[in-house]
């Protein structure tokens, strides 16, 4: 077991884990942050996406020990300070960007990473950003619309 200290959504956290524990399991089980979803556990679905030091990555393909000393943002971090939905979450609801919601945290993390770069992404840029995230429900069109909407709202707000 090793003690892992990291920053999650701006807050310093620590817990111990065996080296074989994925960051995904660590977030959900040791830190009680269960917004990040577990889909395939081998890198193909994107449900487990988190931001590591500013870049979106799959948390099932990172051992928690590797995140020691690093900064993570999870879907919990996309809420407003008062706990209500942030602009990306709200846009997903508004534009019907989800049905069962399984893929949604990963989609929102991918959207967040994209909208940090540009608030008016092209459709190609949106497709590229969520290309590694599978959704079995929506057919993707409403997700693309939700991301476009969130971008517009962010631009209007700035």
């Amino acid at each position, binding site marked *: 077991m090793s003690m892992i200290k990291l920053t999650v959504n701006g807050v310093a956290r620590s817990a111990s884990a065996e*080296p*074989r524990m994925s960051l995904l*399991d660590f977030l959900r089980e040791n830190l009680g942050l269960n917004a990040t979803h577990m889909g395939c556990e*081998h890198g193909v679905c994107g449900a487990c996406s988190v931001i590591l030091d500013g*870049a979106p990555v799959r948390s099932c*393909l990172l051992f928690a020990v590797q995140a020691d000393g690093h900064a993570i943002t999870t879907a919990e971090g996309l809420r407003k300070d008062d706990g209500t939905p942030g602009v990306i979450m709200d846009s997903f609801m508004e534009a019907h960007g989800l049905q069962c919601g399984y893929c949604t945290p990963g989609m929102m993390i991918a959207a967040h*990473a994209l909208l940090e770069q540009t608030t008016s992404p092209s459709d190609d840029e949106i497709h590229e950003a969520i290309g*590694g995230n599978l959704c079995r429900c929506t057919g993707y069109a409403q997700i693309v619309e939700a991301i476009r909407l969130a971008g517009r709202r962010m631009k209007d707000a700035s």
Partner: protein
Amino acid sequence: MKAASFDYIRATSLDHALSALAESEDAIILAGGQTLVPMMAMRLARPATLIDLNEISELAGITNRDGYLSIGTMTRQAAALASTEVNAQTPLLAKALSFVGHTQTRNRGTVGGSIAHGDPSAEIPLAAIALNAEIGLASRTGTRTVTARDFYTGPLSSVRRTDECLTEIRFPIWSGTVGVGFQEISPRHGDFAIVAVAAQLEFGADKVCRRASIAVGGASANPVHAAEVEAALVGKRIDPRLANEVSRAVDPILSPTDDLHATAAYRRRVARVLTERAILEAAA
């Protein structure tokens, strides 16, 4: 789908990694983890010790030196794809990278990890074989360089010894007017290729092809270099008829097999067509 237990070593320098590699029984290097960690989750890999290279900054970075673009083994695929230097000096690699996985896998996956792993359908080894990149290896007893065309010995296997670590991949920089083509058939964009073809051509002022590098991936145990096709292009002006004609010369060098994704016959057929298209793309 959880990895078996292992000892974890966070290497802090190349020397540290090389000593750990020499001293530990059954130790494996962990680079971006985009292939190794899924294999561990599926228990296809069960290393006793993982030596993590991710905190070694000296192994990442791109430098233009002595006619080569040297790419540190731990350079993320995303960083290489975003690099203006890669785009300007080694446009074939830049093009190949855009087919490798997705934003999220490229943010972790490394250039050297893909070369070390040596999947028969992987795009980065294909570009390395087309350009005959040089692969730098280090162990506690010394360093050596192996060219990409001599590196592989079969699917997922190479001449790398278990105590050796890749340190850098040197891609030759071509001067003059260079055109590149990269053609791939895959189930979805971002998936491994069923078949892919990489072509880099250099042209004189008269549009005559002066130099050609072409390789085919996914249709043999490792990507193969198409010397006969290259020879048939040099000294000629490229038009659709020539591209069609010379592309037939890839057939004898292929040894495709049937698998879940495609039959051997399909791979052969597609390899020829993609060669033709890659040549035309590079000449356009």
